[in-house]
């Protein structure tokens, strides 16, 4: 649920980066934080959670314009994957407006990706959301590692593994180098706003 802040004339929505541990969620967010500095208000919050870091910052997307005279502000989060961080996950996922699922292209992580996606579905269900309805973008990360001779899955195979039923937009990316990060985020924001517009019939 996006929050309408009438005092500030802002619509605040929540975009969450989800994915298995070490898949590059944090790297994605760090890259966004670095390269879109001008659009970022406030600092980046980084919490060291076991096995991963949890990141958060506010983002003012440019070029999306105003909706009904309100600015759009996006809160970007990553979620700690470990089971025990249920309170954190709940806080982050509750009222989520859009999700980027970051999948790891390494062959050895194939199963981890699928488990994490299942986990996402279960978590969303707990908060009364369907993975088929929430705005979702897939990102196949770490494509650059192919150059170093590390065995990767083809995007076609990943598409088959993860996106066969979902049929959501997907992008290849290399978060370390920044390739594909911008388009993933942009696509996710578009989907998120479209869905909010549908929900509130702004488009009339």
């Amino acid at each position: 649920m996006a929050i309408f802040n009438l005092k500030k004339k802002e619509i605040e929505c929540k975009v969450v980066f989800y994915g298995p541990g070490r898949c590059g969620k944090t790297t994605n967010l760090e890259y966004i934080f670095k390269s879109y500095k001008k659009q970022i208000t406030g600092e980046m919050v980084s919490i060291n959670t076991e096995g991963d870091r949890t990141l958060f910052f506010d983002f003012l997307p440019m070029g999306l314009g105003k909706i009904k005279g309100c600015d759009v502000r996006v809160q970007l989060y990553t979620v700690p994957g470990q089971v025990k961080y249920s309170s954190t996950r709940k806080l982050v996922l509750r009222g989520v407006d859009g999700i980027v699922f970051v999948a790891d292209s390494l062959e050895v992580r194939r199963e981890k990706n699928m488990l994490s996606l299942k986990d996402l579905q279960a978590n969303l269900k707990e908060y009364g959301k369907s993975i088929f309805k929430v705005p979702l973008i897939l990102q196949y990360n770490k494509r650059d590692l192919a150059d170093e001779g590390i065995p990767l899955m083809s995007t076609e195979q990943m598409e088959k593994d993860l996106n066969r039923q979902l049929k959501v937009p997907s992008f290849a990316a290399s978060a370390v180098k920044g390739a594909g990060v911008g388009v993933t985020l942009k696509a996710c924001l578009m989907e998120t706003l479209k869905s909010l517009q549908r929900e509130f019939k702004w488009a009339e």
Partner: protein
Amino acid sequence: MNESVVLSGSLSFMPLGDILQLLGATNGTGVLRLINRYAPEPGFIYFMEGNPVNAQNGSVDGLEALYSLFGWLEGSFEFTREAIFADRQITKSRMGIILEGMKRLDDGVTKKIGPVTAAETIAETNRSGGSGTIIKGPLVDYMYVVDEEDFFNGEHIVEEGKHGSWMWVILEGVVDIVKEASPVPVHILRIGDGAFIGSMASFLLQGHIRTATAVAVGNVQLGVLDSQRLAQEYAGMSLEFRIFLSSLDKRLKQLTDQILERHKGKNNVDDILKGKKILIRQEKSDSKQFFMIKQGRAVVVRNTPNGPIVLGHLYKGDYFGEVPFLHLGQEPEGAAVYASESIKIVKIETEGLQREYFHLSTTFKNIVDNMATCISVTSDVVCGACSIKTLPADESTLRQDT
């Protein structure tokens, strides 16, 4: 009465993380007060323009206090708008605090404060022989307060054996509940803000006789409850629910009497249990069963390391079993139920009672919750008061799970 309360609610519905976000989004300046009946003192968080600047939890303040308050998963909160002159002790960003607070909770660094830990602390205070536990209630609903009264240290608010049907809620201060006994009165309980003085029996008959004495500890401010309104609400309840309430009230009265018996050193538990069969074992069970006695009698017994201890007797019309919406601390987890051979019981569906419970007015619900807490704590006091080793728990039918 504070008129500047602009936001209040329940922590179990809206956890601290969400409140912080909400106050942040609305740029609130003021004080957030948290009340948890399992914590001795309320917690405070001070906000300036939506950002927390200081916090206090007991003797701890600053960021550490704020993190510790994330462990309060139950209780109530209220936010009052007021100018803040406190030092800015906390400078960390709001979202950073929230995420770190949640993380500490998940990591187990921050302790969860709830019913489970309360039972432990009560056991703790009992062992040390003190009466450190103070039973508190949620925030007072002023709709039901018709008048305020002040009492000074040592003054008797009600006296055992005297007639009276007023009920009070403690607005501020601490009150001791004692039973008259010779040579010295026996201390039963200590109650504080939000707890009630006067029992459910006040509605039952006119000219009700007080069962215990309430003494002000320090200066106490009480709110006189609108008894007519409460009595009207009581009269509107189903017969079943009214019997359920008076059954609970009887339990509490018996418990206070048991404390007295203990102090006299009486213990006839083996006589009482003679010829009785076990109905409910003292154990964690998933079967949510609830019964009413049609005929015969039963006894509620807690098995302790010092042997079984009688918590109360049940007669025709009394209820027993698992009450899903109240925490009584007795059967099945905290006590066993034994019955006479001739007993006849009927199973009761709790849905109806539960529905009625949820439809109670805030004040009445608080009274019922307060009674449940008192039953739970007094049960522990009864067992704690029994320092004399009574009976070796050698019966094979007795199970020890606490």
